[in-house]
């Protein structure tokens, strides 16, 4: 088997979660690669929508920003910022959104706002951007993140984007139309969420990884699915296709 980097592995595993004809709200970098990989493989009819209002982009290079001009030339459609959020996101037109953040907790709440207190920040992060809007309105949230103790925390310092808050019951009370967190994909494992409690749960281990390794890198005692699976190793086709998407390894370094 060709050696893959942790980033490559995560992109390949994430791409497998995408189904043909789904509509994906795509961010730059890793999520963009995952969506494009799925489109080249099992999901040729994937609809890609960008936060900047571009729909069905056909980029000729790797975009650095979701507002890159290469996402515009040759796109299918473009609308304004308010329209993008109103017609596509609030309109309930998006199946899958990718989110990331500095911290994520066991109910899938994500912090991309601040480390420390809001009014006296230790580290001030960029903030929600569209993340909270995505979390509130798409059917499935997928998080791709390196599995590190500082990222996985028992309770986030700030809920920029609500996950299941402190459990499914609290989530239901919010009355949001979104489906909430769906999967967290790391270099060590894939986690999904307990249907009843909304707690994060390891469902598959990446090739060669043990559940102990996962637990060691997570500060709370992780739930594990009754039937813990092994992620099938990346195929040569997946690897080759992915590498053709980012030949200069801007994101796969």
């Amino acid at each position, binding site marked *: 088997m060709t050696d893959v980097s942790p980033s490559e592995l995560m992109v390949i595993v994430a791409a497998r979660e995408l189904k043909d004809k789904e509509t994906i709200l795509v961010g730059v970098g890793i999520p963009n690669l995952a969506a494009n990989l799925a489109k080249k493989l099992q999901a040729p009819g994937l609809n890609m929508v960008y936060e900047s209002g571009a729909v069905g982009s056909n980029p000729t290079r790797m975009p650095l920003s979701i*507002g890159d*001009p290469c996402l515009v030339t040759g796109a299918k459609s473009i609308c304004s910022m*308010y329209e993008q959020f109103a017609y596509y996101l609030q309109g309930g037109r998006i199946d899958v959104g990718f989110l990331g953040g500095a911290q994520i907790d066991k109910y899938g709440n994500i912090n991309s706002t601040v480390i420390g207190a*809001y009014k006296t920040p230790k580290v001030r992060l960029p903030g929600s951007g569209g993340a909270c809007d995505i979390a509130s309105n798409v059917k499935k949230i997928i998080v791709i993140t390196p599995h590190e103790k500082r990222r996985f925390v028992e309770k986030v310092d700030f809920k920029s984007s609500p996950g299941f808050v402190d459990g499914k019951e609290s989530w239901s009370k919010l009355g949001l139309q979104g489906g909430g967190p769906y999967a967290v994909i790391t270099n060590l494992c894939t986690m999904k969420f307990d249907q009843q409690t909304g707690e994060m749960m390891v469902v598959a281990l990446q090739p060669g990884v043990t559940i102990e390794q996962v637990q060691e890198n997570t500060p709370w005692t992780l739930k594990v699915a009754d039937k813990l699976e092994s992620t099938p190793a990346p195929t040569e086709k997946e690897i080759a296709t992915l590498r053709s998407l980012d030949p200069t390894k801007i994101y796969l370094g």
Partner: protein
Amino acid sequence: MMSDKMMTMKEAVSRYVKDGDSIYLAGFTHMIPFAAGHEIIRQKRKDLTLLRATPDIIYDQMIAAGCAKKLVFSYAGNPGVGSLRCFRRSLEKSIPKPIEIEEYTHFGLSGRLFAGATKMPFLPMRTNIGSDLPPENPLIRTIKSPYSDEVVSTVPPLNPDVAVVHVQRADVNGNSHIWGIIGEQKDAAFAAKKVIVSCEEIVDESVIRSDPNRTLIPDFVVHAVVHEPWCAHPSYTQGYYDRDNEFYMQWDDVTKEHDTTMKYMDEWVYGVEDRAQYMSKMPSSKILKLTPKTAYSTPVSYGSV
């Protein structure tokens, strides 16, 4: 081809941007009017409330230069790169001075501008609830729908004192054709009390009238028209010049310290008279690299009866 709205950026800023104003330099990644920001810095405006979904490098510069009293925003990052260090320095260490913040989600802030542009009393929206943002921002409220028991979030309209909107082509009265990512260009123009349009090209009114669906901003909401080629660099203007991604990446280094930031500012902002001088300092290799090949739209016929 003249009108009393045509003026230089220097005149436009001098006439329409006052100390203490709230200002919206529009553009979601695209067509960010850097030339206007630099002119505001040169004219030493202060106590400004800076409004933008994505403060981007332009507001990072204005914060470093001490123009800002407050920032109203939804994503204060360097897109694709990481932090905005001047913004962070102000919040984390009060360097050069502290600024207040008022924070929204993208939908919330673009919604505020839309509500301002269309004079809605408030905008109900499906977001915010469950996040920790509303407790920190008392302007994000909730309301019960008159049609169900649903409780949803609301934001109030936003009406900046001044908006600066860069566009591809405008006529001398400010009728503006815009394409590519259209972000909040139209909403900013309709929401603001005073509107400065800057453009890559001044075209005859007949060019505008050949494609009225492309005109997102009509002349009568515009107060000043500035012909300012390359206004948006290091941001971009679709069809005119590419985004200077290299600059966006370098900004992270440039702003490592307040001193290094101000060194940049001395050279590229305070050290030049206007955008024309800024561009003439630019290596020609950079300009050549950023100039795109053409890719024309297939025309449409409006028909003549």
